[in-house]
């Protein structure tokens, strides 16, 4: 895992360095958002393919799918609620909170 974190950090830092030094073509920077969208949807599609081909997921959905879905919904919702409550008290910078107070 440490290697993976280093790899991701290295790639982020490389992009950041190239861009901060102004070594990117203006046209490329204009297209960054569109390129990100295309790759992102490709990634989500591949994630779907993996789910569709994974027998372990497909066979277990029938048996314990509802329980797993409830677990996912409750844990994600409670995490959102805790972060929401904490940032309401602690962080007031609307640039970080997305305009929410």
């Amino acid at each position, binding site marked *: 895992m440490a290697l993976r974190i280093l790899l991701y950090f290295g790639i982020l830092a490389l992009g950041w360095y190239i861009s901060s030094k102004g070594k990117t073509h203006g046209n490329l920077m204009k297209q960054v958002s569109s390129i990100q969208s295309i790759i992102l949807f490709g990634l989500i599609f591949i994630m779907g393919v993996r789910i569709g081909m994974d027998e372990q997921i497909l066979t277990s959905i029938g048996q314990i799918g509802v329980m797993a879905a409830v677990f996912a919904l409750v844990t994600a919702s409670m995490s959102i609620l805790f972060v929401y409550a904490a940032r309401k008290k602690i962080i007031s910078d609307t640039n970080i*909170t997305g305009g929410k107070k």
Partner: protein
Amino acid sequence: MTKKILIALALGILSGFFVMPDSVYDNTGLLMDIGLCLLLFFVGLDLGSNKDIFKNLRNLGFRILIVPIGTILGSLTGGLICSLIFKIDIFGALAIASGMSWYTLSAIIITPISSELGTIAFLSNVFREVIAFVAIPFIAKNIGYLETIAAGAAISMDTGLPMITKNTNSEVAVISFISGVILSLAVTVLVPIFVGFMV
């Protein structure tokens, strides 16, 4: 955005189930790694073009830790609630909740103790990743930017990062990466601890 994500995901699942030959599965991991690295590079380009990011984050200081801490406490509370709903072993439920979207690791650690709870851990963390992907645009628009990190938890440093960057801003992208690293480390510590207490 949410509709497009759902369509891309549904098309992927359907083609994975009906169209793709089995041999494709082995290559999807590599494809995802390449796509992810490309995305992270472009996220880096975005970050580099914003000169004020680190100045803004310096002002926040240790307060950004509320994101990973809140996410962990929220997940564990969710696990406690689920143990009451389904009447399952409390430490088993906490171990499942501690997976925080890292489905491979949590399932691998839990399965030797209980294959049923291991499968629930696997599936629930897959679902949490999918839910986060679909919900991030809605959360960013209606609840707040930092809460997008809480939804996906550990995936905030890799697969979830491009989605968070696209729907929030550069400052939140940096907080997302830092939080994702802390949350991933927390998974490696919390899951084995709770598995150790399972009966």
